[in-house]
């Protein structure tokens, strides 16, 4: 090849090289721009989820300090009236005691409502909240969970995954028992709910499970359901803690 020809070829190659690296550079810039946007979106979702959580925590507190407190104080007034009622007036005393029991019933219902709004976690953590949940189920539920704490949004999400999974078990599975296993897997919390029921669980659009999945996605979490017919159901959620 002549020197000129070699130069011409070299130039072509050079130009092609420059052109493709510019394209490459453009792509890289686009990619990092998109990544930055995705990250911002994720952070925004997290903030929304945390704001929602705080709202519900506040609602729980308002319920406790407002309605529940006033009703509790009312039971005290009725108790006082009952006590002060003359022993001869047996009928009145009975009615006052009935009224008090009625209010106590309302308070019991309110406790259930409050638990649905935000788990009674206090300073206890996820294991304790799950234990309290398990105690209220009309079937045996064992809980295994670590003692350490995790970010509040993660703990609350894990709690509701278990609550929803158990509700489904009760509704459909005809199970004799359920087991809940919570473990820390590196940077994530893994929650597994197993029942020994009939399987065949539906987790399509509109189901409670799908709603849970969407909520978990806000936290970058995943939810899977294994439910072979006749062989029980396993619901597994993985929620990043970082």
């Amino acid at each position: 090849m002549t020197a000129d020809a070699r130069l011409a070829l070299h130039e072509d190659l050079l130009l092609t090289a420059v052109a493709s690296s510019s394209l490459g550079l453009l792509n890289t810039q686009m990619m990092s721009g998109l990544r930055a946007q995705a990250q911002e979106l994720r952070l925004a979702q997290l903030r929304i989820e945390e704001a929602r959580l705080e709202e519900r925590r506040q609602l729980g507190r308002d319920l406790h300090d407002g309605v529940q407190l006033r009703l509790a104080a009312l039971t005290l007034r009725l108790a006082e009236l009952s006590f002060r009622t003359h022993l001869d007036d047996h009928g009145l005393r009975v009615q006052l005691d009935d009224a008090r029991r009625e209010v106590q019933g309302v308070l019991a219902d309110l406790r259930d409502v409050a638990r649905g709004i935000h788990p009674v976690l206090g300073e206890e953590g996820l294991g304790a909240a799950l234990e309290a949940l398990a105690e209220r189920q009309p079937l045996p539920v064992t809980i295994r969970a670590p003692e350490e704490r995790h970010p509040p949004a993660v703990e609350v999400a894990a709690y509701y995954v278990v609550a929803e999974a158990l509700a489904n078990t009760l509704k459909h599975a005809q199970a004799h028992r359920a087991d809940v296993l919570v473990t820390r897997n590196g940077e994530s919390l893994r929650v597994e709910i197993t029942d020994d029921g009939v399987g065949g669980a539906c987790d399509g659009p509109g189901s409670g499970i799908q709603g849970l999945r969407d909520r978990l996605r806000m936290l970058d979490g995943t939810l899977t359901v294994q439910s072979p017919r006749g062989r029980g159901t396993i619901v597994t959620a993985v929620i990043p803690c970082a």
Partner: protein
Amino acid sequence: MRVALADDGGLWREGLARLLELAGCEVTGPAADGDELLDLVRDDPPDTVVLDIHMPPGRDGGIPTAARLRELQPELGLLFLSQHAETPYLVRILQQSGSRAVGYRLKDSVADVRALHDTLVRIREGELVIEPELVRRLVAPARVEPERPLAKLTPTERKVLELMAEGLSNSGIAVRLAVTVKAVEGHVSGVFTKLGLPAETDGHRRVLAVLQYLRSRRPVDSP
């Protein structure tokens, strides 16, 4: 009996103070949070303290406050009240304040002069008093796997177990069931044998053993 009262809900606090007086107590205070309660007890020592678990400092300040009160006055009776009757809170109370002269009851349950009085008397006598609703939940038959020994208790044995878990002594159980103490001792022995638990004669250790057995939590296997 001299009772110091602490709760951050004014309405409830006023009403309970009146009920305590009707139950024959002399009420000191009231205090609206843990720090006020500490000052109150230091200045004017009572026999028993009635306090809300969920008052300040912090979210559940009642529990650490009670531990500090016991340091000041080891013989002090403690009655913890809450809108919730939850096993995890009971466990933490037992860990921080022990099981002597301690009670944990739902606020609605003590809205009764007789019940309030009886609870305070039992605490004054050094007993552990646990909200029956909490215990009922723990012992509920539906919660128990059929193959577990718990499911094989007779109705009477189940009732005795429940009353043990509430903190009642053998004589207390005898009164409640209208049987002799000897009969109760027989049932208690039967229960412990069936559950495979070492027989505990000491009241407090017994309650703790029963509660431990009834809880749905298994210890975590290390990862």
